């Protein structure tokens, strides 16, 4: 398979909500395959907008977005999405929710639009995969439960399982853990970090939490509340060292980010 270096290429992006001022204008940025990025910025800076653009759920008004070497026109089957609100079907069990994406693929067949065109449905392998990820995320004992019966952290784990079962090559997360209590949030951040280490998947996480940005991002993209014309990127060496959240290096990075963010807010 052709493996281009760049997983996400954004060039000259322009986007505005409704008739408002543009959030992005001539914005360019590029993510390499296997990198893990976090995006941080004040609310209304376009973090989520950028994520939806990359997901193919919003469409740019100017410029180009290429994902996996292909120009983007609609949600891409190999892109996984995890939102703050887990988006689980309330009437389906954890197991059924986890299988949802696979069912949708089977529903359409390998048409290249809704599912990868080389996708052949192998029920037995898919069931094993579902079991594997439920197990890996430690929610296999909850398979028969409904979302309303789970804790928030468990729901988010189920949402992640549902996405990973699809074997994505890019995982987009929009404030995935911000509704969770601190210990559970840190727990899941570590789970995702381990996951990234094992899988080498490209990870793109939107957050408003500085610690989360430093924990999950080897590159941290900072957006400003006014129009974004160029990418401000902090190279976060921290990520590879596996340093604890109490280490001076970690705290120093957090302070640095905080300063950068207040600069961005001041630029309005």
């Amino acid at each position, binding site marked *: 398979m052709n493996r281009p270096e760049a997983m996400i290429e954004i060039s000259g992006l322009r986007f505005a909500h409704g008739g408002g001022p543009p959030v992005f204008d001539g914005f360019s940025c590029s993510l390499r395959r296997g990198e893990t990025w976090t995006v941080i910025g004040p609310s209304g800076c376009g973090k989520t907008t950028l994520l*939806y653009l990359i*997901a193919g*759920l919003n469409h740019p008004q100017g410029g180009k977005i290429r994902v996996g070497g292909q120009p983007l026109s609609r*949600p891409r*089957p190999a*892109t*996984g*999405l*995890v*939102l*703050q*609100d*887990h*988006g689980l*079907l*309330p*009437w*389906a069990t954890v197991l059924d929710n986890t299988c*949802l*994406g696979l*069912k*949708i*693929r089977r*529903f*359409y067949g390998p048409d290249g*639009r*809704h*599912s990868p065109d080389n996708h052949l449905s192998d029920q037995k392998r898919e069931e094993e995969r579902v079991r594997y990820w439920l197990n890996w995320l430690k929610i296999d004992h909850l398979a028969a*439960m*409904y*979302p*309303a*019966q789970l804790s928030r952290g468990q729901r988010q784990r189920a*949402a992640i399982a*549902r*996405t990973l079962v*699809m074997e994505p090559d890019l995982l987009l997360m929009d404030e995935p853990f911000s509704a969770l209590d601190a210990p559970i949030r840190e727990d899941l951040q570590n789970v995702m970090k381990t996951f990234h280490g094992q899988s080498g998947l490209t990870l793109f996480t939107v957050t408003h939490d500085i610690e989360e940005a430093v924990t999950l991002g080897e590159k941290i993209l900072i957006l400003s509340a006014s129009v974004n014309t160029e990418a401000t990127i902090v190279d976060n060496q921290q990520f590879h060292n596996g340093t604890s959240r109490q280490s001076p290096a970690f705290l120093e990075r957090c302070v640095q980010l905080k300063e950068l963010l207040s600069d961005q807010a001041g630029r309005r």
Partner: protein
Amino acid sequence: MRKKTSLTDALVGILMFFILWQVAAMLLHRDILPSPLTVAPIFCRGMLGKLGLHFLASTGRVLAAVLLALLFAVPLGLALGQTPKLDRIVAPLIAIIYPIPKIVFLPVIYVLIGISDFSKILLIAIILFFQILVVVRDQAAGLRKELFLSVRSLGAGRRALFRYVYLPASISAVLTALRLSVGTAVAVLFIAEQSLTDYGLGYYIVVETYQVLMYPEMYAGILGMAVMGVALYFLIYAIELKVGKHLFVE
């Protein structure tokens, strides 16, 4: 979370009902309230004969009306729920028509459509239509944006969204609306059947028995109507329990 009505609850309820009936019959001691012990044999014999035909006619009308209402209310409700612009235009009209007791349109329907089975069915269908329409619309409008985004990100287009989101989301709401409105439907049926037909429990109760003072037979008819209402209610409830398991978990 809702509370389940168990089979035992239902049986105990039925038993209590008959005991109360028997006690009341003994206290009143008049022809107008015969004992269930008198009525039950007449009911059982009747159901195998003429009363059974009346029963089938009534049940058929209700079921036809349910189908007719579903056929129009569900697609329209989904469309309104997902198209806020359209809903804003139509909502005031629905809000006004919704509380009007539709039975008052009976003469109008008779004149416009003619005196037929269909006009009775149509009347009941109109009543159910608005109940289902409003519930399906609200249910479809209440689905969260995040739900659609994440299901779309799993590859779902329009057809899959309908199959995996809209349909299951509305089905339990439809059943609840049906269950709660089936009582009204049967009541309206009773009135609609009192005239201009030869079959139906309403006709049997009022014309064939009450007007000729055959009280035990009349009660057999009333029992038939009750059985129909209760059976429909619990049938829908059973389907609800099956498809809406998530609403009944502890």
